[in-house]
């Protein structure tokens, strides 16, 4: 097993000239994790600017700020960026940094493969954005429905860039997923049994399995699309040559729905770490949270056709997928209740991180509940492809995933950098985010119910459409300011933030047992792991968790 020489790590404090090189050539999971997260944050800003451009265009009816061609490119890039260049990389980056620390390992299982995954992300992202200069960005939406994405209807090279860069990103994600699974299964420190893994690691494990199993469906679709576009193939072309436009959708959503959970599960993991620490209580129902995650992972492969209720697949399909889609709400609900039960009877500290976690509980619940209305497919027959969906998915992905990522950022920033983020700016950041986010997206439920389709570059001045869109656009700019506050906070705190101790929050998992930031080798000595909360056991020798049989 250890027959390959240990890869040498970069010097802790290199010469300034070498500092750049130490990042580029790094195979250290912490550096690569940071690279992942900074790259993701950069693309988050790109996607955010695109969102603001869209909201500027939609602020008033029959606006001509953007042409339809420009608008289509921007909404496609916004979706693609947020899913593939922000959501996945930031969560993979977080897992990269934290998983080895949490399981008491020195690095991931394959450090060089890890660097390879990151650079695929980096260049895949560059390739996607290069399309702006190469004849136009992709302009057919992040799920690029055939036959609109086929040559006869879209000659733009942007779609080829889109397909190629997503293939590159997909290969990188699969490699990262394999790496994380192997790391979790083989590199745990003595005592760290599967049933003692921190929940973040559990979620990462299930997510990685989803990545490994779901990404190939996207890759198949992309390969077939490229063969159609570049070699004159007939997969999704017009029916005359025997192709099928619906096959694209089946394969895309067979990837696309697990993808939703790839973006959501690590967020659940973050919340499962943050809430206990700031409630000063052990996580409630550890086993149920882990098991419900596995249930979600399995069910996520059986719900894809709920994205296709308007396709006319036939009654049996619709019924089966409605049932699956409703069922998946239950393991998700179990988690929400367990998190609330964790807070119950605790001693809650309202740090910015905890505020974001509480925000997550509420907003993710809203997104989850509107999701249930979509599983009831006669309702989906009304609101499918409208702004109601836009609102729903942003409550899940922004109110859920992004809120959790911010909670995680405030929580682990001291570990990453050795400095605390400012709580004062943090509170501003949090409340502006809450106000901006809800102003932007709450009204979009109403817009959908009032008949506004998604992805329209402009709209007629129908009753309430103008005012609701204006409110939404104002909200988007408040959200933009909130993100600016976050940038300022990171910038200022990196330079002048309060020095962080090893364990500033009094947390209980292993990443807090080493210095902040950790040394290249991670640990001098890993504390004994005899329960789920090794650091609790150290501090409370009179009442260690293992006395309670871990449950």
């Amino acid at each position: 097993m250890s027959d390959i020489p240990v890869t040498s790590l970069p010097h802790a404090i290199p010469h300034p000239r070498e500092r750049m090189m130490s990042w580029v050539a790094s195979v250290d999971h912490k550096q690569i994790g940071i690279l992942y997260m900074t790259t993701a944050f950069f693309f988050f800003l790109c996607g955010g600017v695109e969102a603001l451009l869209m909201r500027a265009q939609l602020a008033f009816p029959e606006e001509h700020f953007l042409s339809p061609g420009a608008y289509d490119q921007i909404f496609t890039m916004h979706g693609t960026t947020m899913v593939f260049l922000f959501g996945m990389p930031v969560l993979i980056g977080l897992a990269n940094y934290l998983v080895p620390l949490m399981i008491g390992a020195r690095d991931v299982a394959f450090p060089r493969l890890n660097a390879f995954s990151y650079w695929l992300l980096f260049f895949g992202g560059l390739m996607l954005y290069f399309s702006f200069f190469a004849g136009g960005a992709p302009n057919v939406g992040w799920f690029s429905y055939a036959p609109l994405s086929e040559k006869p209807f879209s000659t733009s090279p942007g779609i080829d860039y889109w397909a190629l860069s997503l293939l590159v990103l997909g290969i990188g994600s699969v490699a990262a997923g394999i790496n994380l699974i192997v790391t979790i299964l083989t590199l745990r420190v003595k005592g760290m049994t599967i049933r003692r893994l921190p929940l973040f690691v559990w979620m990462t494990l299930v997510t990685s399995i989803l990545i490994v199993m779901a990404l190939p469906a996207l890759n198949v679709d992309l390969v077939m699309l490229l063969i159609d576009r570049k070699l004159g193939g007939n997969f999704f072309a017009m029916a005359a040559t025997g192709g099928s436009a619906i096959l694209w959708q089946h394969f895309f959503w067979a990837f696309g729905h697990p993808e939703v959970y790839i973006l959501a599960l690590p967020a659940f993991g973050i919340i499962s770490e943050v809430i206990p620490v700031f409630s000063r209580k052990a996580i409630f129902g550890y086993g149920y949270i882990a098991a419900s995650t596995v249930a979600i992972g399995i069910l996520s492969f059986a719900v894809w056709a709920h994205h296709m209720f308007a396709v006319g697949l036939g009654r049996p399909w619709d019924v089966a997928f409605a049932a699956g889609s409703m069922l998946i709400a239950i393991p998700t609900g179990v988690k929400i209740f367990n998190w609330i039960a964790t807070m119950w009877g605790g001693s809650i500290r309202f740090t910015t991180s905890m505020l974001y976690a509480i925000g997550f509980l509420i907003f993710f619940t809203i997104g989850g509940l509107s999701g249930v209305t979509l599983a009831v497919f006669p309702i989906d027959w009304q609101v499918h492809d409208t702004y109601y969906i836009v609102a729903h998915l942003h409550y899940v992905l922004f109110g859920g995933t992004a809120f959790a990522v911010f909670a995680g950022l405030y929580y682990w920033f001291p570990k990453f950098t050795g400095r605390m983020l400012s709580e004062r700016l943090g509170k501003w950041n949090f409340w502006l985010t809450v106000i901006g986010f809800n102003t932007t997206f709450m009204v979009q439920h109403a817009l959908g119910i009032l008949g506004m389709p998604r992805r329209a570059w402009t709209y007629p001045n129908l009753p309430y459409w103008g005012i609701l869109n204006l409110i939404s656009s104002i909200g988007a700019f408040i959200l933009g300011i909130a993100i600016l506050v976050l940038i300022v906070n990171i910038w200022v705190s990196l330079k002048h933030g309060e020095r962080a101790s090893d364990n500033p929050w009094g947390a209980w998992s292993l990443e807090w047992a080493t210095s902040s930031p950790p040394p290249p080798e991670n640990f001098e000595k890993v504390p004994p792991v005899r329960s789920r909360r090794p650091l609790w056991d150290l501090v409370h020798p009179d009442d260690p968790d293992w006395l309670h049989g871990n449950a």
Partner: protein
Amino acid sequence: MNRYKLAMVLFILSEGTFFGLLILAYVYFRATTGSEPIAAHVLDPLKTGIFSVCLFASSGTMELGIKSLRKKNFAGLRFWLVATILLGATFLVGQGMEYLHLYRSDITISRNIFGTSFFTLTGFHGLHVFLGLVVLLIMLGLGMSKDFLAKHETAVEVASYYWHFVDVVWVVIFTVVYLWVFL
């Protein structure tokens, strides 16, 4: 658990999903459209069958190589690796001949949905065989040094996993694409 073997198993799972879906697409189009030319009229299951036997046999020679390796019989391993590579290469040559024949009969990837799905499916498989051959050649090259084989038994074993996978995929493709024409 050996991390290299585990990683290869996961990689194969992922690749297996990829091929599973490509095969599904082929089956779907085969079942729903009947526009000429179709598989039954242009493919030669017997000829391809003979070349397929080479690929199936190469899994056996690979396994014999691994057995030699376990017994520290490095010369045996090298012999069986060469045999495996030759059998795999023969299969690829057969596929190349088949493609050439089809191309001459004007059956191309853009002709109709049969052409598109057939060349995509078998082409991706051929690409994987080719990559497998590259890996085996690297193993053979490194395997010239006794040191390597003594230390990195796992590397050869992991390569053999991949080779068996490529073989198993062909069993399914051969059944679905070539044997189905008899139904």
